[in-house]
């Protein structure tokens, strides 16, 4: 590698769009002496800087790792296509934001896997770092590559490219992992294989795919996962932080100069979700619910405000209105935020807990639009997916909004859900029209203004660790027919209809429940220059289907096949706390149209309480 890459990198920045993505130098970044630390960790986000800087997980883990004197954690993002072209043209490797040093010089490279469509960016970043894609081709002097985040719960499609994965919450695991690396380097016992074996054996939550042999049945399903050593776990149990009040939370943020997606304080209120919507993976894999107390949250928020200067605090959680002390928290925060002109925002609202009191306290009041997610058009289907909201809840919620002078409501739905019929699709259009009618019936609605109701429809993608993990996805043709049919049902001119592309959802479904054999397809995709597949302008469905076929695989096997309860899944190697028995019960309940109460109403024995956790609503073992 040419030593002068640094000067060339400087020159490149003169010619790319948005150089602010790459120039670094942010306030709050951590700089250390590279000769004084024992391990250098490059935390990579496989998408643009603007998206990566908005990720709360990285903010936390960056702080946790840099709290250790002997570890220096830096950041790296996927260069946009113009930057990538320049890097290739001028032989500039992928570098870390803080030091500007090439990733290949690091001890450990970590990738957070937030969505399946970023896999091609992961491979592309490994390639741009000048490293061999496959774990087996990397030598002892090259960095260890570790993955984490929600997709690591079934990372089998990318298993060949990673040395290991950290399953679950990484605050403790990543530090233990890096410390083990330092120890073995110091003792002189380090080799990639010795280290990975030791990590699998001694660091909880570390999954090393190469230490498990996979065999397949004739029909292509999995026969067995066999550990190649006796002293490593047969299944990898995810890690959790037991007490969120005591768990590390950053008191400062690396401050981007350019505008990012979440350019605000993100205050994590609690982990997990009490709801158990049957399509939702996050609602299962982040269990059990563990809350922070309002006192701790207020202290963290104040400290972050003083150290960042942000004027907005987003209360972040899967379903914020389910926080048991939301009243106390918002009241306590408003005592000082109001005076400082700091506003509160809530990213997610459930219609059944949306009240005037809550709306008055949050910043979204300023915008004229509110968003709710009924997810399905009829009560029957909402019962199937266990959404547990009723039309009345929605009508009450929109009236609160209309009372306050709002005119725009956005409603999120899914199509292609299991058991869906035309009636359910018609229900989506009817529900939207009812909201429009409700506006005119509301005596307080803004006079002389007409309402606008937007329905936004996403295609259902069955995910691992959900009650629908056995379900086939509708084919692209069926999804398109359904979307078209819904289009014909929307006749009200006050209703605007938008929907996602079924093509992307199809590839997402293949990767979400994919196995290791898909690694071949991803490798070909990388050779063919795939990148930024989460971006419509770079996604090419035909090319995706073609690389999957080139790898000798059948896309429908992964996406459109109904699975049996006794099938061994690629993700069965992971124990997320929630048992398969529970998911089978939930699947059966779904097909019977039976709902399951939230964790707070009644424990449904999902199994996650075996992991422990303070201030959860689980019965403790």
């Amino acid at each position, binding site marked *: 590698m040419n030593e002068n890459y640094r000067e*060339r990198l400087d*020159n*490149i*920045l*003169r*010619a790319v769009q948005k*150089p*602010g993505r*790459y*120039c*670094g*130098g*942010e*306030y709050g970044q951590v700089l250390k002496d590279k000769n004084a630390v024992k391990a250098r960790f490059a935390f990579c986000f496989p998408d643009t800087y603007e998206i990566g800087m908005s990720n709360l997980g990285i903010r936390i883990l960056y702080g946790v790792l840099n709290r250790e004197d002997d570890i220096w954690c830096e950041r790296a993002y996927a260069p946009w296509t113009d930057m990538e072209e320049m890097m290739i043209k*001028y032989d500039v490797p992928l570098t870390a934001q803080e030091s500007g040093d090439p990733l290949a010089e690091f001890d450990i490279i970590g990738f957070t896997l937030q969505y399946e469509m970023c896999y091609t960016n992961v491979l592309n970043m490994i390639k741009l770092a000048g490293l061999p894609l496959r774990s087996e081709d990397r030598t002892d002097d090259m960095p260890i590559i570790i993955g984490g985040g929600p997709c690591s719960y079934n990372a089998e499609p990318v298993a060949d490219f990673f040395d290991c994965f950290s399953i679950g919450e990484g605050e403790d695991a990543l530090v233990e992992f890096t410390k083990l690396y330092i120890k073995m380097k110091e003792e002189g016992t380090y080799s990639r294989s010795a280290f990975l074996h030791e990590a699998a054996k001694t660091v909880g939550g570390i999954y090393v795919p190469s230490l498990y042999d996979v065999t397949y049945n004739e029909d292509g399903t999995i026969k067995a996962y066999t550990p190649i050593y006796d002293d490593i776990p047969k299944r990898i149990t995810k890690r959790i932080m037991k007490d969120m009040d005591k768990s590390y939370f950053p008191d400062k943020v690396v*401050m981007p*100069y*350019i*505008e990012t997606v979440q350019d605000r304080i993100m205050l994590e209120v609690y982990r997990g979700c009490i709801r158990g919507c049957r399509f939702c993976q996050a609602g299962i894999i982040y269990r059990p619910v563990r809350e922070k107390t309002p006192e701790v949250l207020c202290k963290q928020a104040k400290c972050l*405000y*003083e*150290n*960042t*200067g*942000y*004027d907005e605090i987003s209360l972040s959680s899967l379903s914020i209105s389910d926080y048991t002390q939301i009243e106390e928290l918002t009241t306590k925060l408003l005592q000082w935020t109001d005076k*400082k*002109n700091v506003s509160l925002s809530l990213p997610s609202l459930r219609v059944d807990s949306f009240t005037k009191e809550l709306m008055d306290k949050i910043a979204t009041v300023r915008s004229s639009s509110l968003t709710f997610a009924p997810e399905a058009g009829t009560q029957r289907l909402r019962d199937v997916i266990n959404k547990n909201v009723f039309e009345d809840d929605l009508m009450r919620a929109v009236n609160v909004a209309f009372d306050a002078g709002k005119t725009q409501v956005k409603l999120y739905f899914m199509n292609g859900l299991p058991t869906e019929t035309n009636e359910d699709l018609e229900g989506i259009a009817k529900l939207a029209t009812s909201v429009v009618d409700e506006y005119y019936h509301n005596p307080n609605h803004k006079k002389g203004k007409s309402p606008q109701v937007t329905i936004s429809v996403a295609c259902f993608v069955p995910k691992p660790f959900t009650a629908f993990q056995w379900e086939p996805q509708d084919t692209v043709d069926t999804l398109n027919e359904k979307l078209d049919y819904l289009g014909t049902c929307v006749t009200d001119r006050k209703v605007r209809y938008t929907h996602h592309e079924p093509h992307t959802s199809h590839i997402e479904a293949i990767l979400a429940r994919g196995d290791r054999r898909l690694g071949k397809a991803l490798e070909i995709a990388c050779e063919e220059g795939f990148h930024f597949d989460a971006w419509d302008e770079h996604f090419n469905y035909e090319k995706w289907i073609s690389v999957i076929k080139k790898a000798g695989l059948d896309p429908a096997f992964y996406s459109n096949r109904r699975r049996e309860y006794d099938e061994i899944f690629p993700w069965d190697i992971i124990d997320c706390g929630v048992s398969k028995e529970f998911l089978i019960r939930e699947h059966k309940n779904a097909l019977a149209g039976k709902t399951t109460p939230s964790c707070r109403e009644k424990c449904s024995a999902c199994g996650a309480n075996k992991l422990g956790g303070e201030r959860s609503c689980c019965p403790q073992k």
Partner: protein
Amino acid sequence: MLPAKMISDANPQPIRIKFRKVGMLRYISHLDLQRTFAKVLVRSGIPAWYTQGFNPHAKMVFALPLSIGTQSECEYLDIRLREHMTCNEIKYRLNCVLTDELSVIDVYEPEQKFADIGYARYDIEIITDGASEELAEKVRKLFETRPLMMFKHTKSGEKEIDIAPLIKSMEVFYSAEKDSLNISAVLSAVAENYLSPEMLITAMKDSLGILSTDIMREHYTIFRTAVYLSDGETEFK
């Protein structure tokens, strides 16, 4: 400064902050810089005066926005204080929450108005094919052309203007050591007659064909080094 007791929301104290924006931060736009300073003021804990409107925000006025890619040792930001704080304290607090590439040089009570600004000095270094004493001479000749007509983007579209009167002075020399052309120019910085140093680059590209190849071989840097009053000599304070 006003006596500490007299400073209040109703009677705020104007303060000028002179800062540098150098190194990689030359790639940060003016808009992003404004957003950054709004947060910097909060972080610093300086008692900045807030506008009293529907959406209160710290009152900030910047002199001479810098274009992306240009570095500067003389940027100016005016704020107001709603409570007394010494200039030294303000400078110290700001630098605690800034970085070397964006840092405060001086804090003082303004002596002049932004409207009194007449000129700014720029140091330009050009790495280009054929850099030589002869090329330096050609550049000198080019900028002696009268009139020197150039197209300028304005609100009402492209307009052809004579930039010659907007150049107060210019020194051009060839550095054998760096094999570069170096220009030090004093250009008009009056709002309606602002001459961007990029315009000089464009003129040289158009007339002399420099900077026409690859960015690795040919490139330039611009540094704003001083801001003057209308005499083009007295430093703006």
